[in-house]
């Protein structure tokens, strides 16, 4: 019985595969296709509308930020030294105080004085930070502090390193992002418990020196692209081997090795230059070049030398 029905279902039932799609699923599939399409259209419409809105919004913010930037520029131009910043701060506070005195009674006066003082201290801190002091933040609800040490080389601010300390039991360093070849451990052992300031100072000296040396290497590679080649250096940048060609008919190559013995300075402690012809190495100008390397940063020294057209 059902067999015959089956045969009706597919052309004579000769052994093909059952792949005639179900006659009803067509409508259903079409319906769901319609739904996805409608959803897509709605979303497109919505999206276009929203993008327009956001665009206007962004234009507004751009304007605002521009204005702010100009303001800040002006301020920076005016305030170059700590003194100026502080005078500025004081003026602000004066204004505050005066208008508060005008407005408030005695009870509020005390309060307002306190707030003024607080803002003053805050401003001091900000100023201090601006000129590259250590930034101190309280962490974990007073159980720890985080010092951030800004480094700079030739009035150019570079990385900021952080040291987070745990004040819970004995003061100790719980995490930091100081590069591993900075002898943090030794510095800490020296004067960590005694006075934190000395520790931070020495640390920042190390860091600044390291960053400075690294920056010099980078600058050399940028400025003297091709002419001067950095043959060798290392992670600490405690040694730097340069090869430069001197001008002249036979373009002899000179190899100058800068050794930075003192990790807290970004100037070399020992400079050796050897060139292909021995006569040149003990000639006076090379000696003064040596001296130059010893007291000015490497890239500036090289610049000077190139200005005097000793090297190509």
């Amino acid at each position, binding site marked *: 019985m059902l067999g015959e029905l089956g045969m009706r279902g597919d052309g004579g039932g000769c052994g093909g595969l059952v792949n005639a799609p179900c006659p009803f699923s067509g409508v259903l599939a079409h319906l769901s296709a319609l739904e*996805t399409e409608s*959803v897509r259209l*709605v*979303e497109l*419409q*919505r*999206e276009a509308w929203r993008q327009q809105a956001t665009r206007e919004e962004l234009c507004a913010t751009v304007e605002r930020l521009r204005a702010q930037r100009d303001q800040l520029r002006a301020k920076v131009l005016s305030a170059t030294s700590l003194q100026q910043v502080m005078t500025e701060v004081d003026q602000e506070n004066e204004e505050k105080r005066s208008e508060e005195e005008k407005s408030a009674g005695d009870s509020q006066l005390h309060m307002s004085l306190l707030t003024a003082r607080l803002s003053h201290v805050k401003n001091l801190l900000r100023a201090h930070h601006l000129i590259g002091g250590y930034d101190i933040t309280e962490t974990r609800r007073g159980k720890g502090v985080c010092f951030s040490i800004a480094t700079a080389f030739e009035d150019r601010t570079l990385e900021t390193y952080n040291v987070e300390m745990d004040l819970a039991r004995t003061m100790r360093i719980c995490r930091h992002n100081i590069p591993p070849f900075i002898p943090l451990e030794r510095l800490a052992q020296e004067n960590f418990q005694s006075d934190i300031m000395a520790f931070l100072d020495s640390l920042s000296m190390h860091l600044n020196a390291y960053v400075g040396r690294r920056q010099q290497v980078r600058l050399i590679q940028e400025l003297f692209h091709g002419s001067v080649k950095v043959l060798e250096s290392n992670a600490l940048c405690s040694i730097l081997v340069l090869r430069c060609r001197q001008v002249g008919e036979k373009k002899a190559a000179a190899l100058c090795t800068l050794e930075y013995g003192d990790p807290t300075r970004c100037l070399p402690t020992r400079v050796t230059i050897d060139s292909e012809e021995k006569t040149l190495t003990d000639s006076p100008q090379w000696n003064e070049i040596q001296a130059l390397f010893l007291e000015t940063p490497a890239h500036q020294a090289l610049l000077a030398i190139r200005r005097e057209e000793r090297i190509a």
Partner: protein
Amino acid sequence: MSLLRPFSKLPELNMANVLLVGNDDTFQHVLADAIVKQENNVNVNVRLARTLPLPAENEDSRPRIDLVVLIVNLRSELSLSSTETSLKHLDTGFFLGKVCFLVTGARCTSVPHERLASLRKIAVSLHCPLLFTEDQTAKGISAAAGRVLNILRVSAGLVPLATGLGLSTLIRCSLPPDLDCQD
């Protein structure tokens, strides 16, 4: 620590506010985006919350909530329990057609069977609808957003001749029959 009330604030014109409660951040955000994307003739305002009660500080900035969607991720026990605690901080007025559960991961092998069962029991006892969702695929998410919007439109009173209470009587969850003693 205040109870969230459905009628404490006045509704605004052409405005529907839905509150998504759940501790699965990513899914919550995706769903919220889909909801906002899909609605075009009224403006929908989606508010996300990890759990109830809502923080008191933005009590006054919060508009009137027309629908509370409790998202339960069956893959994690934590999600279910936090939903149960959240329920305690809902005003009874919400249960007149302003609450629905959104379930994800119901088809996952690793989900123990009784978790879904207990959730069903809760939904049945509260007369709330139980929407199932495919949270892994974009299609499933947009479908879920569409369904939430359907309920939201009604419960926000944007559909003529229909009320949230009326709808909830139709779509409230019911205990499925035990299929294995049918023969």
